[in-house]
């Protein structure tokens, strides 16, 4: 398809790229991390459901394969357009209007901490139409409501085509809520991020 003028323009004016996903999202998100150019000039926040105390090398693996600086969010980190951030396990990651992160340990949302909804909703308030969000594969409904909030604030919202998602429930929930501006195959999502 079908990367039309609208989608390209809205992507290009974005200052923040949000990538959310759960089961089955690691592969497409990792591919994005591998392929974003060092001069993307947008901050990236990755929210993937993770188990606490699970000492994966996710951060290291991602960092070794990224051309942008990549780090796990620390409280009050100032959002930098040359960095990919990963939402830490066992915290929610929020965005303050001063464009810095703040963390929160309050209850899980959809059994998830980090919750994609929480990050999406606070990003919507701060970035409005200067933001692009992509919701990938997952086995629950986290992210759908947040994506709708983003869409209502003017952000560009994209959902991975559920037909090719490993776990279609999460992208489908967003489509059912009418939270998606566009439903794209991953190859088109990769294509867009290169424009």
């Amino acid at each position, binding site marked *: 398809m079908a990367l039309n003028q609208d989608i390209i323009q809205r992507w290009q004016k974005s200052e923040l790229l949000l990538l959310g996903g759960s089961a089955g999202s690691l592969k497409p998100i990792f591919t994005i991390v591998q392929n974003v150019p060092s001069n993307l000039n947008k901050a990236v926040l990755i929210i993937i459901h993770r188990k606490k*105390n699970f000492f994966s090398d996710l951060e290291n693996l991602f960092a070794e394969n990224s051309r942008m600086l990549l780090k*796990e*969010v*620390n*409280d*009050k980190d100032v959002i930098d357009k040359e960095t990919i951030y990963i939402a*830490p396990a*066992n*915290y*929610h990651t*929020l*965005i*303050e*209007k001063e464009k810095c992160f*703040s*963390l*929160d*340990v*309050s*209850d899980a949302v959809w059994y998830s901490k980090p919750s994609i909804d*929480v990050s999406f*909703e*606070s990003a919507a*308030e701060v970035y409005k139409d200067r933001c692009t969000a992509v919701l990938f594969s997952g086995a629950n409904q986290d992210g759908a409501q947040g994506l709708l*909030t983003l869409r209502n604030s003017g952000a560009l919202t994209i959902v991975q085509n559920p037909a090719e998602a490993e776990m279609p429930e999460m992208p489908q929930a967003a489509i059912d809520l009418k939270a998606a501006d566009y439903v794209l195959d991953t190859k088109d999502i990769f294509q867009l991020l290169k424009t």
Partner: protein
Amino acid sequence: MLDIPGSLTVNELHELIDLVKSIYGFDFSDYSKASLKRRLLRVMQQKKLSFYDLKHVLINDPAFFQMFLEEITVNVTEMFRDPTFYKALNNQVIPYLSSYQHTKIWCAGCSSGEEVYSLMILLNEAGLRKKSFIYGTDINTEMLNEARKGIYSLRKIKSYAENYQLSGLSGSIIDHFTVLYDAASIHNELKQNTLFSVHNLVSDGVFNEFQLISCRNVFIYFEIKLQERILDLFYKSLAPLGFLCLGTKETIRSDYFRKKFKAINLKENIYQKIGS
């Protein structure tokens, strides 16, 4: 959804903060706004209150305020949250503490007491319980009552079993509790050298001198200028070479305080007071 808002404007948020400050004396003006706002909206949605209704009950119903305070402060806590932190404490700090005659510890923002008892279990295992005393403080009296009781649901305690095991302590977490039906009560001797009382980090001052202050996942709710005011309070409350433990994702950013607190474990954010 009636007229329950999905959002609060900056002005509305500040109006609520000013109202709470002038009537109840709690000052939320330097709290991190994104999470404060999220919790305010949750109260409004749960209680089906519009912005004007909320102002009305805050002004006219003091009983409502206690519930409100519990809702807008985050009281989620775990025993042995971040097991690697407890491991580091055991390896790098406990040996220091064991050389002291007496150790006073301040657990600031202790909520329902899980962290106080985690520390006490650690001290007990190291044979330091009898010469240690832990002060747990919070702004929330309801939470402090829970902490004093030291009774938790068995399901909750079982959910900390993995944390406990990963922290490297021997046995199992349940060994430190007396279980009755679905409740788990912390052993009496672990409660003996603890005291829980009200202290507001925003407005209250130094009340004792400590060898260790633990304030984990509290700074995340504060803006940087408030964090720094509290760092100053902690500095003044620590004995020379006393330890400060922050949450795993909380850091000391200013050069001024970096010179006053030496990092002894940067990953777990354990610091030691230097200078005087």
